[in-house]
């Protein structure tokens, strides 16, 4: 039984709205920095971001329609109460722009429920009272354009819209509200227990494959990060702490009548939703030691409580039987890794503010790297001498370390180097052998 919010990896394959929320937030942040609700200012930022081409690259009518529906869904969340007046103003302009620059005929409309509508009407009344005529004008213009569908639910509820949970909850803005996040729901105790049990089982199978006396898996199979669960827990704890810190700060802010957002904070904020294993390096460094203790104790117990459920499978995984299953296992290995790489890939990168393009490329490179390392096992199957095999189970191998570093800390490149070196060595090892054979 998967937990309530379990999302099968298959569904992560293509997320039309990847990056959308980030864009909207950047736009709205910059808008709030101006300290005004004038349309002019909004237009300036919109132009500088070239938002009018937001549909670019969506291949066909179906795809662009789905994408725009998602965009409206995300944008309209900013238009609603937990957001400040200024953000809501920005969101209205945003919807105005999105609606009019959509490359879709007939136009996709913005879905509003009764609850949303009464909130919006209230907001517009306030805008009117404060004589923000541009807000009033644009709202009326959208209404005259019949830009709205008056609906009963935010989305169509049908079986085919399987990623309902995912897209709805993951993409709800978190900058402007302090309720529980989807993260906490997804990484529930139950989920972590299961993950931990599966991970352990997986590890054991790999050890079993390496031979009867082995204590660590064959290096060619040891591509999974070993402390995965611990790291997630740590990340979650860090996230929770930071969140609490922020929300209290935010409360102060609202008391002080300033509608400006804490910029520094926001920039590192929003990506956690989509990439839970990722935490900005600085935070985890400062808090690591304290969190570590709590994280380790909490989870070790939990995982044990689940282990009995796996017993049948474990018995089955005796080396002799596993011999036959190698082929299958290899496949499932690859599957699992692929799923992982998918997650990595579709999670928006942090610090996109700084130098977005280069980072994008960097990530692509890393991806290539990752897939390359996947191929390695086949080449080195016979090579059983694992560096540091005397170490205990939890020691991580170069490959996994390289992968870990890219996800867990901000400093990516330096830590990738050992990984590359490692591969070079592998190649060198192979080449002399070939030469010898030829000679």
């Amino acid at each position, binding site marked *: 039984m998967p937990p309530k919010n379990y999302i099968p990896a298959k569904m992560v394959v293509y997320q039309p709205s990847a990056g959308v929320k980030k864009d909207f937030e950047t736009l709205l942040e910059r808008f709030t920095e101006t300290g005004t609700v004038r349309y002019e200012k909004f237009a300036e930022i919109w132009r500088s971001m070239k938002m009018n081409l937001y549909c*670019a690259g969506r291949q066909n009518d179906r795809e662009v329609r789905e994408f725009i529906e998602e965009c409206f869904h995300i944008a309209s969340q900013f238009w609603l109460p937990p957001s400040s007046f200024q953000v809501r103003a920005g969101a209205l302009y945003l919807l105005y722009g999105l609606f009019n620059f959509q490359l879709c005929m007939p136009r996709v409309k913005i879905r509003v429920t009764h609850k949303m509508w009464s909130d919006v009407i209230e907001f517009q009344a306030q805008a009117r009272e404060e004589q923000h005529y541009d807000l009033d004008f644009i709202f009326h213009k959208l209404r005259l354009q019949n830009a709205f569908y008056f609906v009963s639910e935010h989305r169509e509820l049908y079986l085919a819209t399987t990623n309902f949970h995912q897209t709805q909850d993951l993409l709800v803005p978190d900058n402007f509200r302090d309720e529980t996040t989807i993260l906490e729901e997804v990484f529930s105790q139950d989920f972590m227990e299961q993950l931990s049990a599966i991970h352990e089982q997986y590890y054991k199978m790999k050890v079993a494959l390496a031979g009867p006396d082995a204590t660590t898996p064959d290096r060619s199979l040891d591509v999974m990060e070993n402390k995965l669960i611990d790291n997630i827990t740590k990340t979650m704890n860090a996230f929770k702490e930071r969140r609490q810190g922020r929300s209290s700060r935010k409360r102060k802010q609202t008391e002080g009548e300033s509608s400006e957002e804490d910029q520094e904070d926001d920039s590192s904020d929003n990506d956690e939703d989509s990439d839970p294993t990722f935490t900005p390096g600085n935070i985890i460094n400062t808090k690591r030691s304290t969190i570590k203790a709590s994280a380790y104790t909490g989870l070790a117990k939990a995982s044990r409580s689940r282990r009995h459920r796996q017993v049948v499978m474990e018995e089955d995984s005796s080396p002799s039987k596993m011999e036959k299953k190698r082929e299958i296992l290899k496949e499932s290995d690859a599957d699992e890794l692929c799923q992982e790489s998918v997650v990595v890939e579709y999670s928006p990168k942090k610090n996109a503010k700084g130098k977005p393009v280069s980072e994008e490329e960097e990530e692509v490179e890393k991806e290539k790297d990752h897939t390359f390392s996947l191929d390695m096992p086949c080449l080195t199957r016979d090579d059983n001498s694992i560096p540091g095999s005397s170490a205990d189970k939890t020691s991580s191998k170069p490959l996994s370390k390289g992968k870990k570093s890219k996800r867990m800390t901000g400093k990516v490149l330096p830590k990738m180097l050992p990984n590359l070196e490692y591969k070079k060595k592998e190649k060198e090892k192979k080449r002399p052998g070939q030469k010898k054979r030829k000679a």
Partner: protein
Amino acid sequence: MEAGVLHQTVSDVISIREFLQSWDASVIHDSRREAKDSADIETFAELMELDKETVKELDQVCSLDHLKNTQEPVDRWRILGEIPEDLNLMCVRFQKREMEKRKDPAYNMIVQKKIRQKMSTRMNMPTLNQTRRKIPPQFQVTYPEVILTVHIHKPMLTMKDKRPTLTNEHSFLVLGHEKLTELRDYIRCTNDLAIPGDQSDFPDCVMHNYAKDIFKSGFFYIEGTFYNDTRESDCRDYSQNIIKWAKEKNLGQMESHLMEECTFLDLKIRLGQPYVYVHQGDCEHIIIFSDIRLLSSEDPQDTREYPFLTFRIRSRRNVCKVCMTRTAKWVVYDSEYAPENPCFFCDQCFRPLHYDINGIKKGEFKAYKYFDNQAIV
């Protein structure tokens, strides 16, 4: 749509009439009015209670032109096809990478299938041309009006040996003021057109004894209530036995109403919840309502166009096993001229093979009329 990956999300019970009544007059007015892209200064002046000069100024200030970088029109298909180099939006960059990935045909296929599946029910939306037609007043839709999206699935019966799967066969838009029977009459099912019995002795007889003319009963089961079709005197009330059975099993109170007296406005439904339509005794179709919204001026304004078909499954038709071109019209059992048993034949191939020059049946076989799913709607 495998059952395994369903994340079924169901709404609370919604009274459709209450939904309609919850919207105030200004919204209803909005929904009825035709869309206007170009600003009408007077309308704005009235809406905003401002003088025309101010509105004119506002129109300038709030122009969409301020959101464009160049005044050249955007070439829609070009922008959709390729991404301009200097575009730095996150969403576009993700899409760029997605496009790279789609160069792998296998991946592309999965993605396209996903999108198709998700968006299929929304593609065949009415276009403006359809709505601008002159409509006799008695067929004009009346406002306020609700429009519901309903999906009809293939009968579970035909998949008896397999794991039950849901296959959406048709999707309709229905109006709140329509009777449930109007939807029933639009649900096309080949089982309604079955002609009972072996026809091999008299293949030329004109037969119109469709199953739907013989067995007319049927019901919808929605939120604990049976809606029985009793328009014909020989309709049976299927629900009686079920209600009795449910009572014995303590499954709770169930009600029964008349389908022909009930409009969609009278319903209380959950969106996303599977309900059932039963006809022909045991042909069960899952039906799901996915959306409720106010009717807008862009929807078809002619009541005769409803239930409005927005989606229809595209399945392969069964072709004649002899010529492999024409759609099958007969199912033949125990034929010695057939490559398989039972076998599909078109009319043109069936006759010469199974009857001699005088139209006399050759050999022992049974032939049943067959209606292909693709040929009936």
